[in-house]
């Protein structure tokens, strides 16, 4: 009975609370104790007293009701709280691994390959080429956005053998 007193006052831990609630449902004398202790508290606080038939009537009506089956939201929330961070971590690792394994085996060689034509103006329109070279950092076609402004670009005409 002392456990019921503690239960009513919220003095039990989570597991003990669960155990006592389970006992309350199994043992009618404990349920009577629960009811009487609540009655005492209500009497001390001068709550209204209902007729002696009240609880019996509610119980009889509950017996006629089909059992409800709720969503158990709290349980799902608790589960989600523990599993979501793990799932996020696994997903992150998976993405990184996928990106790593997607790179072709000769990737370093490709990175060292010469940049295509934009840096090599054709002799026929050298004026335009100078303009393009001077402004190529603003070109949307570059694959190195934001880096070009820190690079020094040069143009060479190899046909004259000059450097």
């Amino acid at each position, binding site marked *: *009975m*002392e456990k019921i*007193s*503690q*239960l009513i*006052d*919220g*003095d*039990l*831990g*989570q597991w003990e*609370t*669960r155990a006592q*609630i389970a006992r*309350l*449902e199994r043992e009618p004398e404990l*349920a*009577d*104790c*629960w*009811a*009487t*202790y*609540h*009655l*005492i*508290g*209500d*009497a*001390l*606080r*001068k*709550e*209204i*007293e*209902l*007729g*002696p*038939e*009240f*609880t*019996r*009537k*509610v*119980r009889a*009506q*509950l*017996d006629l*009701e089909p*059992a*409800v*089956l*709720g*969503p*158990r*939201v*709290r*349980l799902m929330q608790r589960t989600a709280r523990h599993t979501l961070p793990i799932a996020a971590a696994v997903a992150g690792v998976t993405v990184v691994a996928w990106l790593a394994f997607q790179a072709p085996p000769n990737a370093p060689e490709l990175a060292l390959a010469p940049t295509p034509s934009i840096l090599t103006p054709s002799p026929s329109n050298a004026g335009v080429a100078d303009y393009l070279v001077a402004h190529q950092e603003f070109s949307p076609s570059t694959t190195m956005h934001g880096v070009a402004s820190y690079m020094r670009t040069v143009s060479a005409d190899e046909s004259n053998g000059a450097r």
Partner: protein
Amino acid sequence: MSDREIDQQLVERAQRGDKRAFELLVTKYQRKLARLLSRFIRDSAEVEDVTQEAFIKAYRALPSFRGDSAFYTWLYRIGINTAKNYLVALGRRAPTTTEFDSEDAENFDDGDQLRDVNTPENELLSKQIAKTVNETMDALPEELRTAIVLREIDGLSYDEIATVMNCPIGTVRSRIFRARDTIAERLRPLLETSKDKRW
């Protein structure tokens, strides 16, 4: 565990189809809900009917209860709506939301006004219970009486009571239990007269 968490556990059990868990919530909140509803339904028989209906509606609505608010706040809201609908159906004026708000429903206090809504039968039982509780309280050793008053009327936690009474928390636990047990013993003959009618 807090009171709210204990209620939540009972709700979750009821949501899994355990009616007995809901019955425990009924025994816990029936008088508080009736007191709330008697604030605007004067007839005690009607108060009982509406309280009963509110509990059944709450039970039916349990699948939609997600624990966003405390169970009693949710229950009180259902009680108030049930009472409003009842009064409207009777052609009486229902209280407006500004007159009565479920948010502060749990804190209202007009006990003197409420005690006279009882029927003769309820009033007799209520008086017998109150008399027995009061007499037993007066006869309790001072430390037991103080402990249970601090808990039940002032709503202090065991920790706070231990501080106020300058004693270990285990002593507080024991004193409150002994006080309850003593009063329960004195109430037993009274309650056993209708043992099959009570839980």
